[in-house]
């Protein structure tokens, strides 16, 4: 029998994909399983700068300098035609970009890959304190400061409790508020509080300094840069949160810059700003060990997505799961025969479930779809034109989601907050489609479609949420060729769908004629 060309193409694609993956596994040691994992954080500083056209521009960025309890796996910088030099200033390491003449806006990048260091033990981090200088308070302030410090001293036992009580007092008491207002008048609330606390601690002969960095614990919800207070007790440093006065474990906070709270400074520029983004990834221990080795393989490394900018990596972590979901939908529709509202809406819904979790996702989408259908059926009675009607449904659905989020924030149920991450347009579209089917063909058509969509989305979620699947999709993008081959082959599947075995069960005894 002659093989149809589609099978030849499919076999070639599968062979090519598997071959490339095998080669990369065997030669470069890209791991097949997520394996024993450690967290890796990719932190990217994106500097947008508009230099003064007439003068030579100079941009200084503070970058991590042997951050305690963390290990720098690698760093890259994109210079955009600038000269770069590195220097150490005090406790900080500084990258300096310079350019004699420049027109328009330039984008500079600095990227660091970090993981936890090997020995995260001990509550304090050893290190010499800087010489503590007693600050020179203005005469009008001094009595207030003394009284305040005396009060704190009465309520504390040692240096760290002194720092904690001081931070709390700064926040809670009138005296603290007064002091804050007197000491500093610039910068954000955190910065003001950290700098004021450091100055006050200096007054009590305690070495302290504000530090700039990121909360990088595994469960961290936000990776926005933060300002903390570092205090030295004679043996080592401890970190305090200036808002809550809580002490923070040193392995949870990456110190990016010390003393200074502004990581960016620039000369001769019209404007300069820096934006940080953090990507948390799980990487097997072996990969991290082999990072350096891989850099010797330029071609193989070209296939590795970890070379991309961090926010692009984030996109690809999701994007590369779509083909997996698409193949699952093909299987469900053409081999099983599950009816769904729209072809790939289940995959998009499944990706939304990843932001919530399965139970909350299914519950919320059912709620939103039910509400949307009700709204749509009501709008139908108002006899609106088609497009305004869909727009009205969309608005009603978003209104409903806002209410869910507000209500659940009130009750303190965090699952409901994530409803806002749902792809609105997908849901509005599902609602539109289901309501047309409902009106025209009745619930006996709409309900199976709704159920089919949710079931397919749940299955897709379960599949896409497997760490192994995520790992393979991101580490071996060439496996997409295998998926493509499989899809081509499935595209010629002429056999019965599983549900047809039930649908045509009555015909099993009859003879064809």
């Amino acid at each position, binding site marked *: 029998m002659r093989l149809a060309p589609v099978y030849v193409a499919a076999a070639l694609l599968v062979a090519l994909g598997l071959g490339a993956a095998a080669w990369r596994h065997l030669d470069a040691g890209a791991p097949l399983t997520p394996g024993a994992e450690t967290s890796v954080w990719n932190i990217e500083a994106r500097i947008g700068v508009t230099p003064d056209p007439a003068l030579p521009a100079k941009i200084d960025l503070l970058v991590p300098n042997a951050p305690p309890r963390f290990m720098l796996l690698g760093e890259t910088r994109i210079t955009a035609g600038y000269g770069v030099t590195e220097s150490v200033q005090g406790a900080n390491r500084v990258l300096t970009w310079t350019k004699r003449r420049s027109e328009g806006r330039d984008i500079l990048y600095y990227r660091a890959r970090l993981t936890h260091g090997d020995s995260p033990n001990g509550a304090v981090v050893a290190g010499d304190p800087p010489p503590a200088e007693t600050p020179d308070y203005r005469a009008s302030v001094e009595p207030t400061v003394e009284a305040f410090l005396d009060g704190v001293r009465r309520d504390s036992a040692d240096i760290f409790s002194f720092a904690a009580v001081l931070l709390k007092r700064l926040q809670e008491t009138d005296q603290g508020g007064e002091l804050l207002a007197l000491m500093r008048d610039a910068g954000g609330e955190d910065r003001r509080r950290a700098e004021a606390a450091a100055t006050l601690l200096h007054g009590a002969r305690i070495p302290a300094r504000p530090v700039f960095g990121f909360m990088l614990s595994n469960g961290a919800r936000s990776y926005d840069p933060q300002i903390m207070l570092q205090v030295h007790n004679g043996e080592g440093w401890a970190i305090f949160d200036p808002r809550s006065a809580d002490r923070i474990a040193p392995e949870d906070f990456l110190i990016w810059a010390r003393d200074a709270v502004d990581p960016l400074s620039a000369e001769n520029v019209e404007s300069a700003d820096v934006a940080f983004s953090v990507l948390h990834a799980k990487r097997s221990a072996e990969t991290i060990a082999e990072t350096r080795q891989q850099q010797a393989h330029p071609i193989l490394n070209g296939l590795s997505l970890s070379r991309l900018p961090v926010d692009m990596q984030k996109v690809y972590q999701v994007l590369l799961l779509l083909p997996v979901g698409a193949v699952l939908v093909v299987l469900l529709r053409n081999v099983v025969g599950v009816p769904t509202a729209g072809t790939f809406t289940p995959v998009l819904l499944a990706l939304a479930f990843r932001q919530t979790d399965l139970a909350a996702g299914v519950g919320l989408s059912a709620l939103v779809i039910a509400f949307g259908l009700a709204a749509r059926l009501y709008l139908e009675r108002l006899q609106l034109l088609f497009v305004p009607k869909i727009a009205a449904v969309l608005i009603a659905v978003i209104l409903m989601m806002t209410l869910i989020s507000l209500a659940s924030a009130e009750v303190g149920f965090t699952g409901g907050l994530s409803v806002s991450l749902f792809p609105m347009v997908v849901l509005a579209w599902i609602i539109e489609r289901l309501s047309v089917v409902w009106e025209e063909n009745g619930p006996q058509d709409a309900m199976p479609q709704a159920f089919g969509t949710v079931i397919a989305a749940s299955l897709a979620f379960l599949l896409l949420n497997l760490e192994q699947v995520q790992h393979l999709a991101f580490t071996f993008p060439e496996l997409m060729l295998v998926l493509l081959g499989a899809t081509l082959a499935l595209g010629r599947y002429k*056999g*019965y769908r599983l549900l*047809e*075995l*039930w649908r*045509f069960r009555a*015909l099993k005894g009859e003879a064809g004629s």
Partner: protein
Amino acid sequence: MIGAFAAKLPLATPGELRANGVLGLNRRNLHYVQGENRRALYPLVDDKRQTKRLLESSGVATPKLLGVIEGERDADSCLQRMADAGEGFVVKPAKGSAGKGVTVIEEVLANRRGRILFRTAGGDLLSLSQLRHHLSNILSGVYSFGDRRDSAVVEEVVHPAPPFTEIVWEGIPDIRIVVMRGYPVMAMGRLPTLESDGRGNLHQGAVGVGIRIADGAFAGGQHKNRFISEHPDTLRPLDGYTVPDWGKMLRLAARCTDLVGLGFLGVDIVVDRERGPLILELNARPGVSIQLANRCGLEARLAKAEAWAEAGDAEDAEPADARVARAQAGFA
């Protein structure tokens, strides 16, 4: 082992279905719809305006076209014209499928204050603005594939003829004939029920009744995937009826292939009590439920028709009459 397990379940095995020549959707799509029907010809059957024009110009009987509404501006004048005429009419989306968006107006009424009301086949009363809104929906493409803008077709109401009027309580029964390369291979009657709300779609609860190609006799029925022998509303037995003018109907169906050039075609026919068999619409993707109504797989018949057509290709294609005669002799 799997077979033994399946025997205990209400399932057929793929082997059993294959042995009976049951056609599944995947194979229908790949082998018959994609294999026999050229994409370029789809508009002829997917757009009811084109179908109508083609059928009328070739002298094939079809419900009379009363008007085409291309845009919002035509809608008011056309509705007014229909209201003035006072006769029943049917509104359809030109590119709708599976009966979506079809509204049958049986009668135009005026209430005491002179307001015009339209009585639908289901017995509902629609105001002018309600019907106008339905037309807007059709025009904005709610019922057509891919939400493109659509037109609406207005045509005359069909009045069902006996014997269907005896069997069915409400709705208009029609006959679906699957035609393969010009040979009618299988037929079924679609009888609306109260449950299906007067519509002919089987999965909405209409009754499918097998019709013998040889003589047009009813042969058992199927309702929601179960075999039945009487209509659920009227309790009329489904055996013992014969479709009148059956030969004429088959020839009509066979001619449609010559007109549109689609090798795998579903032809929907209604019988009007005055005008006789009329072609209601054509379908380039006929469904596979017809096998359940006939308790018989399609594959063997499709293969036979293919073989006849290929043998005929050597000389000249057979005319419709000869194809129908061959099919009637071949499919008992």
